[in-house]
């Protein structure tokens, strides 16, 4: 705590504000073309084409969900088989212990359950949520990122980042450029 007062506040990055998503996509594409990589955009609703403009990798969540569904499917069917054949075999109307058609409804439900849990918790985990603190919240105007404004933030960890030139670069695209404290 004590040394923080001595050091100058570090910069997290440089942030630009936009009126609509078209300007934002243009600026994001320009930033990517200018060689910036460590950056992110913030919008009140999902904007298609923005991730691509920023050069972000497409999400892997679908394969995770497929895996989850697979585990749920095998697990559910296996559990039913194990119950009826090993743990608690019971003669019901002369049906064989391995009466697999009767296990399908439960297998389906466990498949959906595990896949859905994977989709939700996988999405949260990949997004790093819950995350109570993030430097972008230090910007007062950032409150409107969840309402009606669009933001692009080039982060200081980017090798090309330089407070002066990055600010100048963003100013070409946006009237409102501000520094984000770390």
């Amino acid at each position: 705590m004590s040394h923080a007062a001595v050091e100058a506040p570090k910069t997290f990055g440089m942030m630009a504000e936009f009126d609509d998503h078209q300007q934002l996509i243009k600026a994001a594409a320009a930033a990517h073309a200018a060689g910036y990589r460590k950056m992110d955009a913030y919008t009140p609703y999902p904007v298609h084409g923005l991730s691509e403009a920023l050069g972000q990798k497409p999400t892997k969540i679908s394969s995770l969900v497929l895996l989850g569904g697979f585990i749920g499917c095998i697990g559910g069917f296996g559990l039913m088989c194990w119950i009826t054949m090993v743990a608690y075999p019971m003669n019901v109307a002369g049906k064989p212990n391995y009466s697999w058609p009767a296990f399908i409804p439960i297998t389906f439900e466990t498949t959906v359950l595990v896949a859905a849990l994977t989709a939700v918790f996988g999405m949260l985990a990949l997004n790093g949520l819950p995350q109570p603190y993030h430097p972008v919240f230090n910007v007062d105007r950032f409150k409107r990122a969840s309402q009606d404004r669009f933001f692009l933030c080039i982060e200081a960890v980017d090798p090309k980042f330089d407070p002066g030139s990055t600010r100048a670069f963003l100013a070409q695209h946006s009237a409102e450029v501000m520094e984000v404290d770390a």
Partner: protein
Amino acid sequence: MDKELVQKPIAVGIAQDPVIGPGHDYTTVTDKISELVLTTKIHKEWVIGFLFSASLASLLGVAMYFLLFKGIGVWAPNVPVGWGFDIINFVWWIGIGHAGTLISAILLLLKQEWRTSINRFAEAMTLFAVACAGMYPLMHTGRPWLAYWMLPYPNTMGMWPQPRSPLLWDVFAVSTYATVSALFWFVGLIPDLATLRDKAKHTVSRYIFGALSMGWRGSADHWQRYEMAYLLLAGLSTPLVVSVHTIVSFDFAIGIIPGWHTTIFPPYFVAGAIFAGFAMVLTLAIPMRAFYKLEDFITMHHIENMCKVMLATGIIVVYGYFLEVFFGWYSANEYEKAVIMNRFTGPYAWSYWALIFCNGLAPQILWWKKYRRNLLLVWIISNIVSVGMWLERWVIIVVSLHRDFIPASWGYYTPTIFDEAFFAGTIGLFLTLMFLFVRLLPSIAMFEMKLLVPAAKARPESEGGH
């Protein structure tokens, strides 16, 4: 070029009414919807409605107390009618819930934009209806604190549930449905909770919404994962909702009771569920829209489309009624024929003909556009349909059971005051939760509504759609 894109009709029948009123932008959508939650003003009408519902819900507490104190003998089911109000109401509530999933999942996959303003509260309706439905099997066990015995887990008794029984399928279907519906609803809420966190003036509400939104900041990287996860959840919920009511219908169709043992049950139950659910959405949406002045967001376009879905599913249900009669004849089985004749002319004939009126005749008025646009009439029809769908389960369950194979065991089922109090109590619980929901959480999805604003539809020249 952008103009063209904006004005391109998205769904059939969109020409007359827009899905969002004119003159809205991101700011007005956010303000209008968040205002309903963040205002400190409490309407007198809300308080009256809430107190009425809460007192009805407290009746559920009384009914449960007597049930647990005296045992399930206070309920009417007994030989030959071993299933009464408990399963009728269970199926009724589950069915109502299905419209929420249909609106949020199936209509999302079909890219029906009109779902957007009604999906959030339809999903809430699903959750609360499933909660009410769950009360019945839970309480019918007589010892709800031991309900976990229904789940497969290693126990000292060395016993396991029986996976060949549709009742165990039900346990898995309903618990999965409740879990997935809750997840779907909550995931949909996260960005809106972040909006409320950023707009809230009061420290306490800022902390609560802040904690619930988990630090959502609308990052592009997060959005793309979020959208994919949401789409996958919709894809998973779609077969799930069909499977749940199919399995509920298996509770009957797998049995050999005349009147239950037909192959038409699964599709006819699923259509009935959607029918009942849309009726309930309309029953709730029409007063809410008027009270909170949401005509710009829930437009006549929504009301008309919901009426059309109700009409279509209603016709499927009526087709099911015809097929039941057909199977009764075609089976060439005396007992099957007797059940059908008993429905037409037996001691419960009133309920069968009331059912035909409520589900078969009354909704046909919705063929006319003039009547689909008459809100009072639509509201009345929706209530008639809710009653009709309740009668359908009554006819299937009570009327099929009360005349057994041996005339000596025939009986007449009448619910007791405890059955009725329990049912009234669940209605109270449902309404109480709805009242709390519209006051405490955004009842219309803000971020999705923003996608309908004209500015959001404009695309940069280089982009060719998504």
